[in-house]
């Protein structure tokens, strides 16, 4: 039996510190995982075009900011509304040392895949123990 998808309310950001622009701000759902060489972030950003997405990494703080494109035509009026759209915003603190030059981001069908390769120094190394 396949799992049924449950609807979860979009997480609204309520902190006053982030309200530099008018409009609603939402926290996107993310998956974060890593292996020995790369840290990967997947984020659900429905309605975001690549040009409207900003990814910023400085001093181990990764910031995602994305504004949502309005799909609605000018003459459309609401019949009923179950979700709101606005800016997506989320920040992460990264513990690993990331090779900033090799960061790779791909946005497809509203899902961001961000690959953050670790620097050589941060990769775990197998040290061969020599027997004399």
């Amino acid at each position, binding site marked *: 039996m*396949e*799992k*049924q*998808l*449950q*609807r*979860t309310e979009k997480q609204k950001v309520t902190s006053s510190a982030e309200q530099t622009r008018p409009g609603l701000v939402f926290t996107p*759902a*993310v*998956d*974060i*995982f*890593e*292996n*020995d060489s790369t840290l*990967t972030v*997947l984020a*659900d*950003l*429905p*309605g*975001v*075009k690549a040009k409207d997405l900003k990814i910023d990494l400085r001093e181990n703080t990764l910031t995602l900011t994305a504004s949502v*494109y309005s*799909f*609605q*035509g000018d*003459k*459309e*009026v*609401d*019949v*009923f*509304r*179950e*979700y709101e*759209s606005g800016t997506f915003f989320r920040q992460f603190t990264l513990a690993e040392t990331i090779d900033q030059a090799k960061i790779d981001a791909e946005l*497809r*069908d*509203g*899902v961001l895949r961000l690959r953050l390769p670790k620097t050589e120094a941060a990769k775990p190394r197998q040290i061969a123990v020599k027997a004399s």
Partner: protein
Amino acid sequence: MIVRRMVPSEGGWLSSYDDFDQMRRQIQGLVGEMEAAFSARPGAGIFPAVNVTQDEDNLYVRAELPGLKASELQVTALKNRLSLSGTRQILTEDESVSYHRRERAGGHFNRSIVLPMEFQGEKASADYVDGILTVTLPRTLEAKPKQIQVKTV
């Protein structure tokens, strides 16, 4: 005594009673908005959440469905009923990875919506762009607004 007028008045002086009257209307307006915000969440939590809008020609149903393929989405229309179903697959990465966050949910969904008017199901179209599904449903001639000319005798 300093009197500060919070509400700019148009058309001359208002009596103190008018000020109260205006305030009462504003409060009523705010309470109305608040009630609308709390009650305007139909759909009983069934995935996906949809927004329905209309213009003169069409009804539009939109849903946020990030990370699907167009082939994984089924949209069916019958009379004034629209069904959206599909499966959102969250692929498991290979076993060598360790997860820090796992918030994105996958699974099957099936939602049926009854729209407030009939539409021409055979002319309906669906687009999936940037994770947003938009279903365009042309209104039937009967459901389109008609301009009625007012004649003078």
